[in-house]
């Protein structure tokens, strides 16, 4: 274990993967955990200044379930999950191990980068709301497994958007991801949206493959070419399907996610835990505003404002309810496709990991547009597996496999096949 901790410290100096390294970890399988998952007695910040001093008095259920594991550290992330590049971190920005000038992706950047760089660790815990496992997995060249919504308990996960959040795995191989998922999945009565369904990880079925055409339209041409070459070289049969509401997914996602997030973040106001100051002589409006202005980063503030607006009386129908209805249509798109095929295969991200200098020039809307390939599956709560398929311009690219609810066995089985392809 000692060498693992030392490696973590070394990597951290170079890449900023960790908010906290737990030197007290002694034995067992080392596990790095995204810092929005509560670890009892270990600092848990969710990447935000406003929780710079939060030491949970309870463990998240996934931590309890990781038997034989020892939490070696909490990884860097976008504050509360707000971001696609992990640049909205109050504890240092994780750098891509393949190229220090590029992003690890986000929001589970630290976990993905660490798995890519570590010699010892086989899997790490991440979390996804709109693509925060798939994105960093693709950018860092590791496996990213986002389970079906409800398969893994959210108890102890610091909420971003409760109807979208899923805890998942960043891993070196599909088998490693599978092993980890087996440990953390399972019904938890502490979480009212936890589903009592048995996890299946293997299938012998002859899987029908579908290509959602809209996803390739939004992706870098070179990546598209590479994917089709791999598919054709592998000899597998596939058919084209359409997910017609794809272009609305980003708007629908952001409205829903931010409406929920703006209520989740209301609790951070300088009482009971977290950043605070002397409240004497101050009215509550004054005090709350002071703490929240100091403690939240710019993206968090932006999202809270947007989310608050979209559910205000007079706008609620037009934004919140409308987005929820569009979500229904997006889910219907997937359900329709899964009647024809078992798995959908698409690029994980539209480009390779961008440089930090490029990211700085993006407007908020351009940031959000990067999520185009991941938000729809996340809205639908279907399982997603991102498998590395070689490189493009020296940077990793990923292939995402999607299947219907609770059909992890399809994507894990096919994922193993993809791993065997010559890239």
């Amino acid at each position, binding site marked *: 274990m000692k060498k693992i901790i030392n490696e973590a410290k070394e990597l951290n100096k170079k890449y900023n993967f960790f908010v906290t390294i737990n030197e007290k970890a002694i034995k067992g399988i080392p596990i790095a955990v995204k810092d929005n998952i509560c670890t009892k007695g270990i600092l848990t910040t969710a990447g935000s200044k406003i929780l710079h001093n939060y030491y*949970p008095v309870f463990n*998240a259920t996934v931590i309890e379930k990781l038997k034989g594991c020892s939490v070696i550290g909490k990884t860097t992330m976008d504050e509360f999950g707000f971001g696609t590049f992990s640049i909205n971190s109050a504890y240092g920005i994780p750098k891509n191990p393949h190229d220090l000038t590029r992003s690890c992706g986000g929001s589970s950047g630290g976990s993905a980068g660490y798995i890519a760089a570590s010699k010892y660790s086989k899997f790490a815990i991440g979390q996804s709301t709109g693509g925060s496992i798939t994105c960093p997995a693709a950018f860092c060249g590791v496996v990213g497994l986002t389970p079906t919504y409800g398969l893994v308990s959210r108890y102890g996960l*610091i909420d971003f958007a409760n109807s979208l959040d899923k805890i998942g795995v960043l891993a070196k191989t599909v088998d490693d991801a599978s092993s980890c998922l087996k440990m953390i999945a399972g019904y938890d009565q502490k979480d*009212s949206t936890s589903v009592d369904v048995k996890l299946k990880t293997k299938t012998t079925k002859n899987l029908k493959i579908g290509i959602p055409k809209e996803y390739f339209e939004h992706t870098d041409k070179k990546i598209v070419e590479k994917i089709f070459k791999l598919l054709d070289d592998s000899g597998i049969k596939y058919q084209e399907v359409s997910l017609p509401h794809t272009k609305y997914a980003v708007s629908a996602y952001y409205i829903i996610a931010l409406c929920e997030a703006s209520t989740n973040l209301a609790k951070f106001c300088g009482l009971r835990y977290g950043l605070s100051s002397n409240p004497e002589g101050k009215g509550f409006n004054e005090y709350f505003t002071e703490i929240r202005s100091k403690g939240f980063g710019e993206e968090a503030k932006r999202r809270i404002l947007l989310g*608050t607006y979209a559910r205000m009386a007079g706008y609620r129908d037009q934004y*919140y309810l409308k987005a929820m209805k569009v979500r229904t249509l997006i889910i219907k798109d997937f359900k329709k496709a899964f009647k024809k095929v078992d798995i959908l295969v698409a690029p994980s991200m539209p480009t390779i990991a961008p440089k930090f200098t490029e990211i700085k020039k993006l407007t908020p809307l351009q940031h959000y547009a990067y999520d185009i390939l991941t938000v729809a599956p996340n809205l639908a709560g279907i399982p997603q597996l991102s498998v590395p398929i070689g490189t493009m311009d020296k940077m990793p690219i990923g292939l995402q496999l999607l299947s219907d609810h609770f059909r992890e066995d399809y994507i894990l089985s096919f994922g193993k096949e993809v791993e065997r392809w010559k890239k």
Partner: protein
Amino acid sequence: MEKIKIGIETHVQLNTKTKLFCGCSMKDINSVSENSRCCPTCLGMPGSKPRVNKGAIDAAIKVALALNCDVLSEMYFSRKTYFYPDMSKNFQITQYEVPLAKDGKLEIIDFEGKVKKIGIERIHLEEDPAKLQHVGGDISTANYTLIDYNRSGIPLIEIVTKPEFSHPKEVRRFLKKLVMILEYLDVYVPGDLSLKSDLNISIDGRERVEIKNVTGAIDAEKALQLEIVRQKGAIMRGEKIERETRAWLPGKNITISLRKKETENDYGYIFEPDLTKIEISKKWILEMKNKIPELPHHKFERYQKEFDISPELINSIIDDFYLAEFYEKCVKKEDPKLVATWVNILKKILYYNKKSFKEAEITSDIFLKLLKMIKRGEITDLGAEMILREITFNQQEFDKISKKYVKTDDIASIIDGVIKENKEAVFDYKSGNEKVMQFLIGQVIRKSNRTVDAKTAKRLLEEKL
């Protein structure tokens, strides 16, 4: 007379074993030390999640049925987001879009003495916030606030009426009747913090004023009466009545302005994504319906038909569910009128001792024994009352206690004794002062330890003198 329109929103604390969204125990919740009945959920700690208490829904269904409401077949929870120091999450989990029940009614006697039905707009479940202590001043002048989260998450039923009250008296009657029904349903914790109302009043079509957080029926009437007076005064001074929210300060019997209605808090309701929809089946409703005992107004009608006792006496008995139960048990074996009279006296004894019947120790067996002694003339009424006073809280000693008051055969010696000991009074009486007889009678009663009744004493004294 002004035209008054009042609507109320009453919050009732349920007597479930645990809080609404977590398993923290509700036992003695108001007397345990601060912040000792909390968990990550009711403290709003990041990472915590709510879980709905089935017992609270059971109770809410019972209340909805008792108030003649339509119980909805599907129930959802909503998030009502607003910032306040007593909120553990700065949103309250409540039921906005889809309440548990709606469109009920409760009958009261209006301010003119006529029967009137008050419409129930909706009933829903929500959680209570924490308790605030204002340090260095009152709510608006304090230096800071101390917060106790023991109460955070306590299950409340909110009952919203239609604005159909025309007088503060009607509000008091409604709340008293509501409390009685809640006690019958055994869903309610009687006590200081258990029934809080927000009162909305509009006089002569003027702006609506809200008085928040008024505890109990009597204070509700007071607060409304005061508001009517305050508005009268303001009108006379030429001031305009503004739409506002006021706080009731019970100790000082005044209301103070909290905020003027510029913008209503925009709560930005969303569906609570950590909880699921709950289907309320017909089976569940029937199950709860069967748990509802005979309600006060039905009991009243039945007692009127079956027992020949006055309405006042009926009301006195049915006021307390367990006392009524006791009464019904006794009348199976004894005359309803006799039982009624003595149950009423029992009630007075309980009231004097500030106890409810549930806290008394007396059983129907012992009570009936006492009534038999009265019927057989073994004890006087006064003697019976003395016995009852003692055995209400100590019925094992019945035999010993009752012996003390059994009528003695040796009345003659008592009479003689009184005459001997009160020579002056006797002289007065013989000299024509009739009024002194009362005094002498009193002496006989006292000396005989209430085993001689007034009538007999008078007769024997008059014979002797």
